[in-house]
């Protein structure tokens, strides 16, 4: 049960007040990137490559420049003069801003047009004449690894498309463990490319003030402070200095990780504004968004899991080929090229594991970024949850029973996994049992048997995932060297109202509400009177931004810590005002009272006023604090999901009849918002499981590059999610929270695949890759002799 310590009026933790940010969104008064309009603003549009690999023979811009209103056509050669034609990726690789000689993937930026109006810019990109000479294309990462394959990145000075090899775990011990197991199950699992497809695409308005030498960039970014530093590092040599760069992340129409990277379009718009001295706006359209922005997944995995006849899981071996496209532009912490993939032992007490990942270049846009889970946790959970299910079926054990048997015990936390993670807390048996009770698991199994006897295909799938979020402790976690702490700054005004600023940036998660609730919880100031601001690097404290479910574990924690510093000072002021000893004061939300004398009270509002009007001699005036929170550990949210599917033998359609999600994200700030996060995450879980894929033909043509081909689920395809929770607080987080934004995206896909395979195991199906479209399932059915 969610408990509360404050009144609804204060609205601290556990309350579900209406969101503070909503009135502007509800009335059409949000301020998204497209709404930013400056006097004299110019428009940018981008010419993109129709080929996946080609030499640029020539670019003739004369016809474009002849169109009235067209001011400039910017090419890679233009940027080369300033050394801006290449830029670093977040993974210390390099990627092109604009090419000087070759393009490496379809839809890559070739040159940019600057015009006075949007439609003129759109006309002009059609008028730019580019001559290409096609080059051999490699799209398959396995072919890309073969000797003699076309080199995607000859600039690297290596004779291979191999980027890096990474491994963790004890190979020999794992081999021995697998050999000693009664059964070893092995499967190839492919997680295709998918795209976050936030309903708002990416864009920016860059405005360079020539007199002040100051650059202001409004941009769709989840990490404005990091972007500012990257811009200073990339463009320092042309005179952009960090104090003269202001990045503003306005209201963001969904991020999901797709708005973490620095895309070439941003940099070109900035360069154009600096060169021309006027504001330049760039808004990508949906097809550019789906074809050129960073992608997620593209992991080709072979997994082996050992299991004994009694159901004991032994060792896990994983080999993965990671297709990064033409640049390693993932957004992982520097130390971990495959992210947190080594969480792949999941919720189970495995004694041995070994993981190898190889990154490889192909002629595709940069991959390996995010889809509501940036650090490869989805890939890890998919692998282990599929393999556990396969092992259960192979030895004839119920998939729930094998999980119950192998879960890490509730009293084993903190638990050190064989691959080195220290899980903070968990109670996996409880969550699975709860999900089973809600859905009526045993009854469903009986129904399944009856249906099977009648020849109907019904499946029940379980996923008991462990997430790993809240990056992260500075000893292990940095991006481009910047440690992954995050921040909060709280100022209490004389009348007892507050403003709080953070290094993160909401993209719909509701920070203006939940951060206010944290401050309300800690200080007893009504959340209605706590103004939350994020996203402006000139005013907010430095932080690494919002992704990887890190806001609550980092900035949320920082809010509590800063509030506690304020409370410490407030106690001193209260003692002075009440002429009492600090030790004799008791705190309850919003007030100090003297122990044994409940009449002697000072409210936080009275104390705030005194901090500016009547503070003790020798004490600094004011009431404010800043905290940079460096988490001592990651947090490990978890959950158990159960999904029931019916499969139409005639069409191959998978119908998700029910889906129960029991999540545990530790202590909860706002139950309604947590539910909303889970609903959204589940929907971004069913999406890749059943509908979404960005694939490429042999020539490197993108086959999912519009909403005609890329099937974002509507309300009709989306089941009515049933959600519930258990609460196992994090022992190291200041208020026991863990983060929840991505859990459901991680947990849902394997539950759905497990359900489908559960429906089909008896006809000989062991695995199906996602997306499990009707066409794919229809073929699986026919291949296994099931007729319609």
């Amino acid at each position: 049960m969610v408990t509360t310590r404050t009144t609804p009026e204060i609205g601290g933790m556990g309350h579900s007040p209406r969101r503070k940010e909503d009135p502007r969104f509800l009335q059409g008064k949000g301020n998204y990137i497209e709404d930013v309009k400056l006097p004299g603003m110019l428009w940018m549009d981008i010419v993109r490559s129709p080929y996946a690999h080609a030499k640029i023979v020539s670019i003739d811009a004369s016809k474009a420049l002849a169109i009235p209103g067209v001011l400039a056509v910017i090419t890679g050669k233009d940027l080369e003069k300033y050394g801006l034609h290449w830029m670093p990726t977040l993974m210390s690789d390099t990627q092109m801003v604009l090419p000087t000689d070759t393009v490496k993937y379809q839809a890559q930026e070739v040159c940019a047009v600057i015009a006075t109006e949007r439609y003129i810019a759109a006309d002009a990109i059609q008028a730019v004449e580019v001559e290409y000479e096609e080059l051999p294309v490699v799209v398959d990462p396995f072919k890309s690894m073969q000797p003699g394959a076309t080199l995607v990145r000859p600039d690297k000075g290596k004779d291979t498309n191999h980027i890096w090899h990474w491994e963790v775990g004890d190979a020999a011990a794992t081999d021995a463990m697998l050999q000693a197991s009664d059964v070893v199950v092995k499967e190839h699992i492919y997680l295709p490319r998918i795209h976050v497809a936030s309903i708002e695409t990416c864009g920016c308005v860059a405005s360079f003030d020539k007199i002040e030498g100051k650059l202001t960039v409004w941009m769709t970014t989840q990490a404005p402070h990091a972007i500012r530093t990257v811009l200073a590092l990339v463009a320092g040599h042309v005179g952009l200095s960090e104090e003269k760069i202001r990045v503003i992340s306005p209201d963001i129409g969904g991020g999901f990780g797709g708005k973490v990277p620095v895309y070439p379009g941003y940099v070109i718009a900035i360069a154009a504004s600096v060169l021309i001295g006027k504001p330049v706006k760039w808004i990508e359209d949906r097809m550019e968004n789906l074809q050129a922005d960073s992608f997620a997944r593209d992991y080709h995995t072979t997994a082996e899991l050992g299991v004994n006849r009694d159901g004991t899981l032994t060792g896990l071996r994983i080999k993965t080929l990671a297709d990064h496209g033409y640049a390693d532009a993932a957004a992982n912490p520097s130390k971990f090229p495959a992210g947190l993939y080594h969480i792949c032992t999941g919720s189970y007490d495995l004694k041995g594991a070994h993981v190898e990942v190889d990154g490889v270049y192909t002629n595709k846009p940069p991959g390996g970024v995010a889809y509501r889970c940036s650090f490869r946790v989805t890939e890890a959970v998919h692998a282990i949850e599929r393999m556990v299910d396969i092992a259960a079926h192979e030895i004839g054990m119920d998939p729930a029973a094998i999980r119950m048997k192998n879960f890490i015990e509730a009293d084993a936390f903190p638990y050190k996994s064989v691959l080195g993670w220290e899980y903070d807390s968990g109670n996996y048996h409880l969550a699975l049992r709860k999900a089973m009770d809600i859905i009526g698991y045993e009854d469903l199994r009986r129904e399944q048997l009856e249906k099977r006897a009648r020849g109907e295909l019904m499946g029940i799938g379980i996923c008991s995932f462990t997430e790993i979020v809240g990056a992260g402790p500075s000893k292990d976690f940095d991006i481009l060297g910047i440690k992954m702490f995050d921040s909060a700054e709280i100022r209490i005004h004389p009348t007892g109202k507050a403003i709080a600023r953070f290094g993160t940036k909401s993209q719909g998660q509701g920070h203006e509400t939940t951060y206010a609730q944290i401050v309300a919880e800690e200080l007893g100031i009504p959340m209605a009177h706590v103004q939350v601001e994020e996203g402006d690097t000139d005013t907010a404290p430095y932080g690494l931004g919002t992704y990887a479910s890190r806001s609550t574990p980092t900035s949320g924690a920082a809010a509590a810590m800063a509030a506690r510093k304020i409370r410490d000072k407030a106690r001193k002021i209260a003692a002075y005002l009440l002429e009492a000893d600090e030790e004799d004061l008791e705190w309850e939300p919003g007030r100090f009272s003297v122990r044994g004398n409940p009449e002697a009270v000072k409210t936080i509002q009275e104390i705030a006023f005194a901090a500016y009007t009547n503070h003790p001699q020798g004490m600094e005036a004011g009431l404010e604090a800043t905290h940079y929170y460096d988490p001592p550990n990651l947090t490990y949210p978890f959950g158990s999901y159960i999904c029931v599917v019916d499969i139409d033998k005639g069409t191959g359609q998978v119908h998700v009849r029910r889906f129960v999600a029991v999540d545990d994200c530790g202590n909860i700030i706002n139950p309604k918002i947590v539910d909303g996060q889970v609903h959204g995450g589940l929907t971004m879980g069913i999406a890749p499981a059943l509908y979404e894929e960005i694939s490429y033909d042999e020539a490197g043509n993108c086959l999912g590059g519009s909403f005609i081909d890329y099937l974002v689920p509507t309300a009709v395809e989306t089941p009515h999610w049933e959600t519930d929770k258990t609460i196992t607080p994090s022992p190291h987080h200041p208020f026991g929270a863990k983060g929840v934004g991505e859990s459901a995206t991680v947990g849902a896909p394997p539950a759905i695949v497990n359900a489908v395979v559960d429906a089909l195991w008896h006809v000989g199906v062991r695995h199906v890759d996602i997306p499990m479209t009707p066409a794919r399932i229809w073929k699986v059915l026919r291949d296994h002799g099931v007729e319609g």
Partner: protein
Amino acid sequence: MTSREIHLTVNGEARTATVEPRLLLVHCIRENLGLTGTHVGCETSHCGACTIHVDDTPVKSCTMFAVQADGKSITTVEGLAGPGGLSPVQEGFWEEHGLQCGFCTPGMMMTATALMREVATPSEAEIREAISGNLCRCTGYVNIVKAIQYAHAKVHAPAPALAHQGGE
């Protein structure tokens, strides 16, 4: 391209705009009329973020040219709130947490508002069908359905039974 003048009623107000014949209605609304509550998510009639009402019928305003709206009456999200504050649909979205990033929300609410006029008490399936032209990437639709149910319940609730009349 030669521009021409069009006359519209926008949220009850007479407005004039000078537009190129090829200008999309959504761009006219956002740029020429300065109403940025109507959003663009695709320009290809798939996402529904640009949904408005043209003569009380929901329309994806990226699929219409501004000149086609000449002489018509259009309503955008900015016209939803009544004098008494939020409309029942807006209130429902707020109460039921029917929005997260808010980007799909104006279009979603315009579709929901049209449904209010068509069906008094729609089933969950009917609501889902009605909003299936509007994509939301954040909410998973559960709370959007609840928000719309809230609005219907509020408007179409049976009138409260009259209190005791007379002097019994």
